């Protein structure tokens, strides 16, 4: 069973990963985006780190993820804010008010969170967005957290030959081909941080 401390740890691990990889995310966002993905997520996850610090305000897994999601929407400033914010908030809502949740509960909740992201952005796998990492990642969760992280990584890598159909990159048409999607890359970081946390290595 996973308690609020597990989710606090996950959010801290995600913030660490974003700090480590911010420059790379911004580099990926330079040719096809507006070169702010790393900086935006850095600001957002720094705020999440503070928001989830301490025993309160979030005593349950669901409440903690909802606080983290609301914080991302409030602070990121780019499209990744409402998208990741919705992912975490919806996942948190699905977990309800339980003090501890099973891995199976978390799987189902994350699936609902990813569905909410797809609805909000009107995107599907293959559009060269974060969903190309999130959807295979969540599908692989039934095997293990590490399998989910690996599948998300693979999904992010597989965005290279795709033509973007959503967001600013879609304006580039053919010229968006040949670049890895920064949103899929950061989504893989988030699931990687979850796997590290579950394995106690974060």
């Amino acid at each position, binding site marked *: 069973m996973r308690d609020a401390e597990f989710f606090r740890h996950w959010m801290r691990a995600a913030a660490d990963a974003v700090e480590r990889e911010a420059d790379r995310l911004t580099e990926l966002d330079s040719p096809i985006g507006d070169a*702010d993905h790393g900086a*935006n997520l850095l600001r957002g996850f720094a705020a999440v780190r503070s928001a989830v610090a301490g025993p309160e305000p979030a005593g349950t897994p669901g409440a903690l993820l909802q606080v983290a999601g609301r914080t991302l929407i409030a602070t990121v*400033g*780019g499209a990744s*804010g*409402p998208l990741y914010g*919705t992912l975490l*908030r919806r996942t948190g809502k699905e977990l309800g008010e339980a003090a501890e949740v099973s891995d199976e509960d978390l799987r189902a909740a994350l699936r609902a969170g990813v569905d909410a992201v797809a609805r909000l952005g009107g995107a599907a796998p293959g559009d060269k967005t974060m969903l190309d990492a999130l959807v295979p990642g969540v599908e692989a969760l039934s095997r293990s957290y590490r399998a989910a992280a690996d599948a998300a990584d693979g999904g992010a890598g597989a965005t290279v030959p795709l033509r973007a159909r959503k967001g*600013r990159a879609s304006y580039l048409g053919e010229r968006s081909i040949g670049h890895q999607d920064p949103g899929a890359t950061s989504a893989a970081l988030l699931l990687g941080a979850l796997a590290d946390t579950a394995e106690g290595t974060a």
Partner: protein
Amino acid sequence: MSAGALVGIVLVSHSAGVAEQVVELARGLAAGGAVAPIAPAGGTADGTLGTSAELITAAASAVDRGAGVAFLADLGSSVLTVKALLGDEELPPGSRLLDAPFLEGAVAALVAASAGAPLEAVAAAAEEAYDYRKG
């Protein structure tokens, strides 16, 4: 909803300058009667390009007269942030994101709202702007 209350309008743009100037343009074109409350929510709180949930909720409170608030958004994160805030009920009751072009929709919405139209009619006026072909 109080009788005779006007629908409020919020213009959400990636740029503070764009949001403010479109508010000014819409006000100028809507003048002739009482102008409904309209406010810009442009750029981020620290003055860069982007979207600020904080500026959006503050603008919504500023124009809310109890008859609903209509939002027009320009691109990407402007649209997604309003949708995310609506999904979490962090905007005033009767808030609605209009599916309309930003500038033309803003003018149509403000003219309709200033004439005392209810939210449904304000939305319809703004959405009709898509039917006007330019070529």
